[in-house]
């Protein structure tokens, strides 16, 4: 390389590094997007009521499904990982990051009240009620991401309480218990209802995941209470506590807006759960931890999660997309999560991939070959849907070839 070329490359690297530094400083304020999500819901109701244009009720759904994937495409990936020094600083300012989530939790409830009012008492067409339904679903998706973040901070009572209040917005009472004590233990194994299998489409996965997670959550909480010598049907049961918050909130809306509020609330809640199902579907599709000589699954490693690192969706999901680091450090706050360059990665951000998952053929076309490459052609290492096992083995398994290739190259190396 010429001297001129080296100087040019050094200048480009310095420029990139300066850009990263600027982004790291700005990122602190961009996290406020978590507040903007319910604020859009509230604002869109105000606009719809003021102007009479019910199309406003579509606003958040359009932001989630259209704007964020486009912004991801335009602004690309987020290369920035905090240095050790910056991590210490981010931890020092952790109250700022927590307060965003506390305020957003309150706004989530206000957003749900506002949208339910518009859907029930506003004079809007069925088409725009569908927009309200999809917007609340998108808000629930972000709410459950917030609840996920808060619910992992089990050494901080305030965060745990806000996690419950946040899960209660969409009535997903078992989420925090089930996710921590169930999913984090069984992740990327056939035993986990929240890890999808290769060949399993999103709808089949939802039928397995939704009841499976609810059952596991209840069982784990019952076991915890039994160890403490308490009844499962007591106020110590976190699932019952969270459900009571939901009943109080939804009950208040039924009293204020009429019984018509109830189907809207229940349907939007169910759709919110399905949005979480979509996130679960894409996070570990087909990846499997192997069983060691001791008969136990190997530890969860960075290679057992699908990551993606696009800027806008990273902010929207509180870095949930840096999923490998999350599983390695479940209590690490969102502002500290790091990208692993060698972890399995998705071609787009979570919202775009969630949308893609709704079209099973497109999903499999994009993802199946990635899983096969991850397993290096050895389909015994893949978490597969038993109904598709034979078909997938016949189509993709090439472990024998891999073994031959390896022994050939070893032989050549020895001869050389």
């Amino acid at each position: 390389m010429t001297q001129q070329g080296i100087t040019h490359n050094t200048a480009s690297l310095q420029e990139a590094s300066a850009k990263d530094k600027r982004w790291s400083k700005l990122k602190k304020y961009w996290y406020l997007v978590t507040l903007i999500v319910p604020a859009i819901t509230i604002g869109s109701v105000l606009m719809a009521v003021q102007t009479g244009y019910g199309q406003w009720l579509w606003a958040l759904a359009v932001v989630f499904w259209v704007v964020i994937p486009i912004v991801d495409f335009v602004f690309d990936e987020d290369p920035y990982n905090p240095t050790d020094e910056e991590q210490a600083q981010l931890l020092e300012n952790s109250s700022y990051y927590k307060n965003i989530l506390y305020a957003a939790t309150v706004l989530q409830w206000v957003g749900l009240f506002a949208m339910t009012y518009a859907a029930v008492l506003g004079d809007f067409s069925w088409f725009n009620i569908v927009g309200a339904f999809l917007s609340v679903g998108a808000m629930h998706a972000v709410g459950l991401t917030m609840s996920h973040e808060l619910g992992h901070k089990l050494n901080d009572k305030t965060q745990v309480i806000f996690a419950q209040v946040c899960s209660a917005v969409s009535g997903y009472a078992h989420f925090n218990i089930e996710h921590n004590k169930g999913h984090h233990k069984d992740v990327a194994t056939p035993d986990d209802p929240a890890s999808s299998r290769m060949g399993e489409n999103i709808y089949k996965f939802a039928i397995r995941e939704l009841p499976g997670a609810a059952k596991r959550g209840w069982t784990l909480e019952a076991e915890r209470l039994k160890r403490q010598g308490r009844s499962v049907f007591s106020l110590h049961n976190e699932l019952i506590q969270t459900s009571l918050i939901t009943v109080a909130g939804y009950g208040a809306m039924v009293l204020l807006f009429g019984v018509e509020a109830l189907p809207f609330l229940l349907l939007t809640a169910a759709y919110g759960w399905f949005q979480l199902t979509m996130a679960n579907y894409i996070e570990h599709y087909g990846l499997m931890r192997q069983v060691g000589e001791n008969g136990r699954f190997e530890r969860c490693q960075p290679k057992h999660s699908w990551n993606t690192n696009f800027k806008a969706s990273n902010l929207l999901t509180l870095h949930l997309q840096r999923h490998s680091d999350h599983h390695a450090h479940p209590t690490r706050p969102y502002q500290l999560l790091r990208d692993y360059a060698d972890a399995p990665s998705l071609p787009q951000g979570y919202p775009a991939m969630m949308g893609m998952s709704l079209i099973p053929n497109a999903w499999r076309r994009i993802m199946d070959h990635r899983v096969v490459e991850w397993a290096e052609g050895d389909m015994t290492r893949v978490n597969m849907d038993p109904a598709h096992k034979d078909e997938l083995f016949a189509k993709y398994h090439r472990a024998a070839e891999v073994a031959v290739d390896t022994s050939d190259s070893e032989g050549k190396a020895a001869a050389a």
Partner: protein
Amino acid sequence: MSFRKYCCITCDTVYDEATGWPDEGIAPGTRWEDIPDDWTCPECSASKSDFYLMDA
């Protein structure tokens, strides 16, 4: 000094110093402080620092 128990804050897995974790190559009687800092929870892979001391 009596043996202590440590619990993983994420998944509730308990490490008992009295029984150790022979599967993991940790002999019975191994004190918590003698377990390497990069050791992780065998169940959920959380860091050693994510374990808390349980009440006796």
